[in-house]
């Protein structure tokens, strides 16, 4: 598969590109926030592909769910394996660290990224100091396309589809907006956020939970 200069088809792929620097591939936010937002993006992807939903009780999986890749399958299995339904907030915390590398690997297979081998320094015996694996864009034209495309949509005030509405809403919920949409006009964004608040499948609940989880993570951080 080849990378595209459009927004990637899968929601989490598109969000990964927004949440990471288009040149260095490093997260634009603190790792904790990146994990929360990536967890939210995978849940949103499951909702868009009609495999999961969120209601007042929590996150649920449809019996007809058919994951098409490892990231989706991991998330669906984790959610389905729970005896009781859990709130979206719990899943953001749990799924985030699990699915982030899986989404990165998905993008690697599609040709957006390449894996930078972790640096390993041998200490003694079997002990090493190793850096975490990291993915670096091959060509920033592809990794910046999603951001450019969304900025263009907001700037031109074109009608915007549910997929893009959800991307914009999640960017704002996670606080990425200052880096991703630095020049977006407030009223254009408000119009999109208003539209996003009527999306189905419990997506608005997901945006609210993401916003609250991010605020809570910042508030509870030790400085």
């Amino acid at each position, binding site marked *: 598969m080849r990378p595209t200069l459009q927004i990637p088809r899968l929601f989490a792929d598109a969000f990964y590109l927004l949440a990471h620097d288009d040149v260095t591939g490093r997260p634009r936010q603190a790792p904790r926030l990146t994990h929360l937002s990536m967890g939210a993006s995978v849940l949103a992807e499951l909702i868009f592909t009609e495999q999961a939903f969120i209601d007042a009780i929590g996150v649920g999986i449809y019996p007809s769910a058919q994951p098409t890749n490892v990231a989706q399958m991991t998330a669906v299995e984790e959610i389905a*394996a729970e005896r009781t339904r859990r709130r979206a907030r719990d899943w953001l915390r749990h799924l985030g660290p699990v699915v982030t590398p899986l989404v990165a690997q998905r993008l690697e297979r599609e040709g957006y990224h390449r894996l930078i081998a972790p640096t390993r320094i041998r200490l003694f015996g079997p002990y090493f100091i190793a850096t975490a694996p990291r993915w670096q864009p091959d060509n920033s034209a592809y990794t910046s396309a999603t951001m450019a495309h969304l900025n263009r949509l907001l700037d031109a005030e074109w009608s915007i589809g549910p997929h893009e509405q959800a991307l914009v809403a999640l960017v704002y919920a996670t606080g990425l907006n200052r880096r991703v949409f630095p020049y977006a006009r407030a009223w254009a964004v408000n119009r999109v956020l208003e539209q996003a608040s009527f999306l189905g499948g419990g997506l608005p609940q997901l945006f609210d939970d993401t916003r609250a989880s991010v605020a809570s993570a910042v508030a509870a951080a*030790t400085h």
Partner: protein
Amino acid sequence: MRHTQVHQSHSRVSEALAADSLGVRSVLGFVLSGVAPLLVAAGLITSAFAVTGMTAIPFMLLVTAVMLTVFFVGYLSMARYVNNAGAFYSYIALGLGRPLGIAGAIVAWFGYNMLQVALYGIFGATIAPMLGDSFLHWHQPWWLWSLVIAAVTGLLGTREVRWTSKILGSLIAIEVLVILALSLNGLVHPAAGSGGAHLFTALSPRGLTTSAIAVCGAVAVLCFIGAETAPVYKEEAKSATKTITRATLIAVSLMTLVYLLAPWALIVHYGPDQVVDTARRIGPGMLFALGNGWLSTVAQWLFLTSTFAAMMAFHNAATRYTYTLGRERVMFGVFDKTNKALAPYVASLLQTAIAVAVIALYAVQGWDPMVQLFFWMGQTGGFLILILLAITSIAVLLFFRRDRPGVFIRQMPTWRRVHAPIVSAIGLGWLAFEVWRNYSALLGEQVPTRASQLLPGFVLLAAVIGLLRSAWLYTFRRPVYEAVARDKASGPAAATAGLHPATEVGY
């Protein structure tokens, strides 16, 4: 897909989340690292003796601890339904409406900022003579040291420096041990001629007048500020209810124990007749003088680290408020920027700028850092928080007056949702009113001055700013207004979720 996973007897997610969650001890550690026991014992309690001229401080500390425990019953009951549960204004907005919530947010912001800048005064005023008298012979003005520590606090406030909090936590444990050692030493060395006769009379409420109750109560409330932060860790805790409740109650109990012991020992050691005069003469030094030699020296240096810990705590509290208000667009949106260390660095820079500006103003004007910065600002900040506590109690009472989405009031005992909030609202409200009436006495003035007339006005100023801002948001930025402290069980999200066909079938 492996369907067998559904039938496993335990939850992997629960285990994974629990392993990554905070237990009672961790939350307790976070809460206690934000309080400064030696600052309270040596700075606030001795000031209370000096200002009120009363010896009933231990009794009032006990009464305040009981009153705050009653307050926490309602506060923690509501915390589970509140997003951003560490901020009073979220409770006020949900219980009393958004205009008062936004006004409460601005009052809290003013309050925490005043508490923060107050500490720069006592730090500079304490360290300047200590370094001047030390072997270093560094004779520098107080404001220079205050500016240095403001810069350090600002720098650490934008970094994820876990070692700092660990070191401060360890130092606080040592502080508690030092207070215990000093207090025990004071108790076993009663005032000459008393023969230990004051051992129990020191705890009596003898001589309390209404104005003394107001002053002692205000100081006592100030002593316990920090315990209200536990719900901040609600989402990170193993249990949002049990863990937070236990941590808060243990924190208040420990603080009460330590804070009671110090004034008790001071009264027994110096005698009820001399303790007030001694406090007026040597201030915080009267606690250090309970020990001798190295213990006294260690206590004096720990007093500085204690003040620094409190600075960090109030800096972070004020930063959190600024961040949240920026995020909800009540203040400028730029304050919601976070850095790679998860720190809201723009909000943190604002706090540092405010601190530097206030220190510079005091330095230029030549105002007294102990009285006019530490005591005036500290007491006014505490007064603002006291008012917020009283209003929050009313908000809790009104929040539980009816069922809401996800809130079924019949599932909660009446004493938690009705009786406790009523008692704390009356108690704290009465205390706040008495403090207002006796503000001049609180500042230790012989005759009322302009300061005691103007400083309580900060409440009105902040509230008016908040109400005007709320009116502006309501008129021109309705979506922003409606998003302020939105109940997590209401709003369009819940409405949409409720409409969705819940056809979930497990695997």
